[in-house]
Structures are given as structure tokens and as C-alpha cells.
């Protein structure tokens, strides 16, 4: 049954991507609307695939790397759709879908080794993990938007305007979308981290307050707050702020990989 939903998810995301690309190239409104509908369908199927897998393994999705990556992809899709609806802008879909698909496919490529049970559990812990992953998804989205901004801005400055250029969102809209995404990430990472401390505090025995992951998260938080503030200032608004946003996300990726694998005692995947 899980397999069926995985196939539906892949097909829906792929078809949605194709239609978003068609919308970007030709501006076909019907294709754009259908792309959004298929994205919703993909999200629903993806959710059911995650749910059935969790039931099968008797564990939450973020218990192992495979589930964590798949959940990240799902939350990225949710964040993107919210942004698409809020800003009424579809052209970005063609760039975001490949990232979602990449996470979804990669989750099947990573080894499916059962992880040792985590000491932390419960609703507060689940909220801590889910909100943190949602924050990272929002930061990933702001990175994609910033990259589009930088590319479009570069085309404009060197006066090389390709076919798709005329369909891309305006630079200022991309900036606004990126800021909305970062704001969402900041709110969720703040609440998620606070809940993390609370969850640790409730742990019996030696609570682990001094994990390097915390320092990294605080650094990420500070850098994104800085981006949020700087993006409206004289010296930084525009391309510089977008470059900072991309740099911040590189740190987030480092936090996922190097810090989690080599330094953190208590964080595995996120």
C-alpha cells in the first residue's frame, strides 16, 4: 500500500513539475492551475506514504534518515504551496519542484538501517522536531528564491534576456517571497528550539543542554535575523541580501551534515 502512494507521489510531483515548466515557458494559465492541483495531490499522497511507513515501522518519520528526508521534502512542498497562494506567484514552482523531488528520491537511496530508539519522545519532542524541519524547509525555499533573484538580477545587469526571463517573477516580489519564507523559518525555528529545550528539561537523568547543534542553531538563527533586518537596509537590500540568504543556507546544510555527524551527541538527522 505504501508503495502505491509512493508511486502516486512521484507521478503527481513529476507531472506537476512538467506543468510548472510549461507554465514558465509558455504562460499557459490552465497548465499552471493544473500544476498546483497536482502538487496538492502529490502532497496528499506523500503524506499518506509517510503515515503508512510510520505505521509499518512503528516509529515517527524522523526516526531514521530516510523518513527525515522524505518529511523534509513534504514540508518544503507545504511551505512552497503556502507561499504560492499567499503571493499568487506560480513561476517559482518550476525551480522548487526539483528540490522536493531530489529529497524525495534521495530518501529512498539512503540505507534503510533501523536507528537505535531515541531517549526523547512525546508530543513536545515531536513538535520540536517537526517545527525545526519546517524551519529548515522554509530556509531552503528562501535559498531557492534568492538564487532565482541573483540569476535574474545578473541577466538584467548584463542585458542577456533569455526566453524564460520575461516570465520570471519581478525581483522585488522574489525578495518579498524570500523574506516571507525566512520569517516563517525564524518563527518555527525559535518555537522549535524552545520546545527542544523544554523537551530536554523533561528528560530524566543528565539533560544535554550543551550540544554543539544548539550553538549551530543559534548561529543560524542570528544570521537569519541579520538577513531579515539587513534585507531592508541601504547597504544590503537587493543582491547582497540574497547572497547572505544563500550563505545562511550553506550553514544550515553544514549543520545537517558535519555538525550532526561529527559533533552532535544528541541530534541525528535534523
Amino acid at each position, binding site marked *: 500500500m505504501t508503495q502505491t502512494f509512493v508511486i502516486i507521489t512521484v507521478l503527481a510531483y513529476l507531472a506537476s513539475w512538467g506543468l510548472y515548466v510549461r507554465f514558465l515557458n*509558455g504562460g499557459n494559465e490552465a497548465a499552471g492551475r493544473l500544476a498546483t492541483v497536482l502538487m496538492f495531490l502529490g502532497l496528499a499522497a506523500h503524506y499518506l506514504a509517510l503515515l503508512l511507513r510510520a505505521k509499518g515501522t512503528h516509529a515517527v518519520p524522523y526516526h531514521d534518515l530516510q523518513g527525515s528526508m522524505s518529511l523534509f521534502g513534504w514540508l518544503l512542498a507545504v511551505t512552497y504551496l503556502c507561499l504560492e497562494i499567499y503571493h499568487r506567484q506560480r513561476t517559482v514552482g518550476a525551480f522548487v519542484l526539483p528540490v522536493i523531488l531530489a529529497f524525495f528520491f534521495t530518501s529512498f537511496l539512503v540505507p534503510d538501517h533501523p536507528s537505535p530508539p531515541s531517549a526523547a519522545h512525546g508530543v513536545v519532542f515531536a513538535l520540536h522536531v517537526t517545527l525545526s524541519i519546517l524551519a529548515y524547509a522554509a530556509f531552503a525555499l528562501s535559498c531557492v528564491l534568492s538564487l532565482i533573484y541573483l540569476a535574474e538580477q545578473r541577466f*538584467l545587469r548584463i*542585458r542577456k*534576456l533569455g526566453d524564460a526571463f*520575461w516570465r*520570471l517573477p*519581478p525581483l*522585488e516580489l522574489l525578495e518579498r517571497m524570500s523574506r516571507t519564507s525566512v520569517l516563517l523559518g525564524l518563527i518555527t525555528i525559535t518555537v522549535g528550539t524552545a520546545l527542544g529545550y523544554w523537551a530536554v528539561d523533561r528528560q530524566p537523568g543528565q539533560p544535554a543542554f550543551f550540544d554543539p547543534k544548539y550553538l549551530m542553531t543559534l548561529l543560524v538563527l542570528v544570521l537569519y535575523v541579520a538577513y531579515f533586518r539587513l534585507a531592508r537596509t541601504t*547597504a544590503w*537590500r537587493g543582491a547582497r541580501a540574497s547572497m547572505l540568504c544563500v550563505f545562511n543556507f550553506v550553514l544550515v546544510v553544514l549543520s545537517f551534515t558535519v555538525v550532526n555527524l561529527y559533533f552532535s551527541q544528541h541530534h541525528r538527522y535534523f
Partner: protein
Amino acid sequence: MEIVLVGLNFRTAPVEVREKVSFSAEQALQASEELRSNGILEETLVLSTCNRSEVYGVNPNGTRESAAALSRYLSRFHELQPDLLNRSLYHHYDHDVVRHLFRVSAGLESMLLGEAEILGQVRDAYLRAQNGNGTGPVLNRLFQAALEVGKRVRAETELGTRPMGVASAGMKLAERIFGKLNDRSALVLGAGTISEQVVSQLRDRNIGRLYLANRSREKAQEFAERYGGEVLEWGEWETALKLPDVIVSAVGVQEPLLTKPLIERAMASRGNRALFLMDLGLPRNIAPGVAELYNTYLYTMDDLTEIVQQNRSARQSEVPKAEALVEEHVGKFISWQASVELIGVLDSLRERMKSRRASFLLEKSSGIERYSAEDREHLIGLMDELIERLLIGPAERLRAEKEFRKKIRNVEAIRELFLSSREKP
């Protein structure tokens, strides 16, 4: 039902003839009314733009004679020699009219391929004719479909996306930076023809605030009164450059008017918000070094001309896509037309069978004299029911036929086999 079109355009008539055959809004209504009251046409619509004058109509008699009558009427209306006019006129009928109109509203028949204005002109002509009771079921359907084709072509192809004029290319670029310009401000330097084109483009895009500056303040004032806008003092750049998001300069100068340090200071005072500059003057009005400043986008006349050239060839490559959309809608319209005709054919066939039933009963009256009036009514009822039952099957099969050409062939076969020419709808 026959749709007819008589008209001329930039391909068939020189401007001297076109301007003589153009219709004002009042003349269009007058001609439309006269054509209907004279019985030349049943439904009428006049489409008149600077590049074309066309009269669309539906002929009450289903013949092509109305085209000749329409040509005669046009020469009388515009007081032109029939010979002179006939050389420039084209006549189209039925499906050719549909195809022609769809191509017109798609911008495929425009002098500037894919221009957007024609769709608005078709819409205005249609609304005017509709308000003047010139249109009926056929032209309503035809023009609604034409507007849909125009919208689809602009939404689904690149034909209308890419700007074709220097001024509109500049505006499109500004939109790529700021989005809609209705909450933005622009400063136009100069009051010549190019500045006028730019101001007109800015007004079309509902620019939020428009500032104008010119060496001659009177000319700028005159400009501002015509288009709306605020006149700024020439030379007071420190204050003037703080305000706008878009600066367009098209004045005659020997040295750049807007230097790099000037724009640098302006950028600092406006918090480095993005600034789009269009230099449409020769020699250049804006120092090239301005392009290096952070968050400024400088486009010269050469840059914009190059974009327009690229767009022209890109638009040309979109023609097959637009034509495919036109053909799709022509097919839909013909299908609708055929379904209307199908209903007409079936109604005529029913009428014919009922009249044959009446004459058959009259012919056999001696045999049914012994029946009471009630029995005769019953018998007529039974025969009518039989007619309906006989018609149900073929009608359903005709309606269900998916292949359009086969449907038409079937309708034609019924006409030929069962109906006289008088009864053909």
C-alpha cells in the same frame, strides 16, 4: 446561415484609401443600422482601426449577393468610386470569416505582429455593436469566441509577451524589477516624441506618480496637463532624483546629463532602492558608469533596440503555435454552427414528415371515414409518435458523432435525401 465579411486593411489598401474608409464610433453604428434596415444584413458589426475597416454580417438569405450589396453600400457611405474601393476590398464567407477574425484578434493579421491593442479594439467594436442591437446569436458567438482566442494566444504563446517597441521594452523591463508600476514613480526628462511615447506607456500601466522635467518649463507644463503629472525644476537633480523608481531621459545634450556621482548620491539618499534608468537620448544622456552602481539598471537605446530585434524573431517563431490555437477555435465554432444546423435539419425533417402524414391521411380519407373523430385524433397521435420514434435514433446518432466532417456529411445527406431546397435551413 451565412457569415459575410467585406473590408480592407494595410495589406490591400494604401493609407489614403484606409483613412477614407475608416468609421468613427457614430458612423459605425449608423452604417450598422442602415445595413440592417435596408435588408442587406441581419446582424452587423463594424470593426474600424487605423489599419483596417471591416464589416461583419449575417446574411438573411444565405446567399453571397449581400457581399456585392455591401461593397456598393460602402462606396456610397464613404462617397468613393466603386472601382477604386473594389480594388482594395476583400470578401470572405463563413469559415473564412471565422478564421480571419480569429487571426485578427490573435494579432496575426496586425502590422506589428502580435500587438496587444487589437484585442481591445475588437472588444470595443463588439460591445458597441451589441449595445446598438447590431449583433445577434451568430455574431455574439463569433466575437465572444474571437475574444477568447485573442486571450488564449496572449496567455499561451510568446506572441504578445515580448515587447516590440523601445518604450514598451523599457516598461516591461521595469516591471521585471518592480512588478506592477501602479505604486511606483517615474521621472521623464524631455518633452519630445520619444518622451511622449514613454509617458503614454507609463500611463497605460497606471504609473503611481509621474514627474516631468524639461529645459522649457512651458513645454513640460503642457505635457503634464495632457498626460497628468508633476513638473519638476530642470537642473535641480539632487531633489528630483530622490523620488523616482524609473528615470527616462530623452533630451539633446553634448555631455551626459546624469553623471555617476549624481546618481550615486541619489541612490544613497533613496536608501539604495532599485533604480531603473532608460537612456533614450543620442548622444547619451546618462553616464555609462552609472550601470556599475549597486542596484541600478541602465538600458540605452542600443540595448533596448537589440531586445526588440530579438523579440521580433522570437514572436515570428511563435506564429505556428498561435495559428494552431486559431484553428482549434475555428473547429469549435464550425462545430457549434453545425450543431445549430443539425437542430434545424431535424426540425425541418419533422415538419416534412408531419406534413406528409397530413397529406397521406387526406389521400386515404375515404378509407377512414368510418372512424369517429376521436379515433382519428388517436390515429394522428399514433402516427406522430411513430415519427418521433423514427427520428430519435438518427438524431441521437448524429449528435453523438464525434468526427466533425462525418457529422457534416450526415447532415448534408439528410438534406439531399429528405428535404427540398426550400426546406433547407
